[in-house]
């Protein structure tokens, strides 16, 4: 098993099962800094399980996960310090303000108030949310809540950003704004991004893809490489071939 220390995320031969039923089967792929990787797969493909393993909410029994060269099992805290996460469900405290939620996160990461306040201002301003910092989360709409969660995930300057279907339930303009912003982050800040989705229109031409179906990686590589491997001309067709075709 070779672990590439320069990778932001390196997954090797990872398997996981719920009561004997395989949720992930021998999954391997890696993400380099500045790379935006879309994890595609239908419901039940194993995307959420993979995220729970990367975030150490579950324990990986078989295989290895390395974050910036740190083994998630043995060097858990060093690895988690490099990770920013936006979960599928909102994880904000509804009764606290935007500012209180963000300060809570910085406290958990050991960041002093003096350092935290300008960082919060910077992240919220980039997402046009600074003027809403004293509003309770409950008062925000779905798109704004997501922006706050993305801002929060970046406050401790992670090397890898995990997004688990962050645009589910959002209207089209909010969705596009988040897709654009995350791609911009990857390009400008050299941030590695792993984005779980089943929405094909969220893919940019320069993105990398990992297609997960029935617990296995069916395809991985750049958009062009996946199209070539599936002998298709669109991601939609490629995805259909890999999931529906393979299903039969």
């Amino acid at each position: 098993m070779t672990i590439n220390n320069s990778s932001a995320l390196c997954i090797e031969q990872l398997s996981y099962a719920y009561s004997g039923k395989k949720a992930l089967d021998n999954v391997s792929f890696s993400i380099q800094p500045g790379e935006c990787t879309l994890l595609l797969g239908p419901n039940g493909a194993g995307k959420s399980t993979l995220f729970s393993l990367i975030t150490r909410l579950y324990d990986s029994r078989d295989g290895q996960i390395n974050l910036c060269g740190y083994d998630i099992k043995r060097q858990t805290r060093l690895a988690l310090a490099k990770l920013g996460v936006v979960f599928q469900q909102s994880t904000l405290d509804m009764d606290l303000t935007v500012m209180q939620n963000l300060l809570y996160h910085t406290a958990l990461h050991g960041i002093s108030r003096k350092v935290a306040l300008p960082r919060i201002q910077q992240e919220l301003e980039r997402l046009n949310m600074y003027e809403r910092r004293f509003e309770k989360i409950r008062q925000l709409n779905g798109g704004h809540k997501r922006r706050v969660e993305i801002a929060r995930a970046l406050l401790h300057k992670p090397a890898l950003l995990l997004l688990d279907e962050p645009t589910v339930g959002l209207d089209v303009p909010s969705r596009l704004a988040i897709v654009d912003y995350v791609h911009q982050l990857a390009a400008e800040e050299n941030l590695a991004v792993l984005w779980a989705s089943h929405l094909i229109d969220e893919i940019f031409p320069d993105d990398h893809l990992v297609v997960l179906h029935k617990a296995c990686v069916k395809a991985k590589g750049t958009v062009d490489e996946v199209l070539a491997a599936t002998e298709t001309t669109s991601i939609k067709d490629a995805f259909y071939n890999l999931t529906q075709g393979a299903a039969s």
Partner: protein
Amino acid sequence: MNLVHYWRAMSGIIGRELWRFITQRERFISALVRPLIWLFVFAAGFRAALGLAITPPYETYILYEVYITPGLIGMIQLFNGMQSSLSMVYDREMGSMRILMVCPLPRWFLLLSKLLAGTFVSILQVYVFLAIAWFYDIHAPWQGYLWVLPTLILSGLMLGALGLLLSSFIKQLENFAGVMNFVIFPMFFMSTALYPLWKMKESSALLAKLAEYNPFSQAVELIRFALYGQFDQHAFFYTLSAFIVFMAAAIVGYNPSKGMMSKKGGG
């Protein structure tokens, strides 16, 4: 990872919990109403039915309201411990628990911080209750109000750890109500909170034995003696041991290799 990081994280967790409690007025009021009803209604009615002999730490005949006060303090902490674990099950279902669990600190420390936060909230409730009881002519020696503080920390931690342990085994919020009934009521009624052990022995030796081994009884006795400036060594070690056992089991329950998250699968 340095000590400052631990301190900041713990302050953040405790500060968040206290802020939530202070801003949720309904929760504050309902936490007080319950023991006050017991004190003003139940104890007043029960006073005539129950004759109390002079037993330590009391040096004279006391009213039933005086006897029941430490039990009601224990009740506040018991309900608070269960409520904070209920909120953990809720947080876990709703996802906000994940943010805590993925921060780069040991899981035992995060759980202990959560526990301390809940304990501080319960201590706030206890002192407000004691202030109201003072106006109802239930007076302890003034030193007692200080001595009781460390015992409240220990008893709050022990009852919170029990709640934490229960929450680690509960997969869904709906299952919690049943467990509350099977834990809170037996624990409260099978204890020395409402009646002394010797009185219980008169009616059932088995019940008295169960009450004696009930860690809630020991926590109540620890509080009772401290409130009168005395130290009950047996109750202290019993409560401390129960806290260690519950906490260790809760940490195991929240270990990722044991699977603390509800394994629903998903995408």
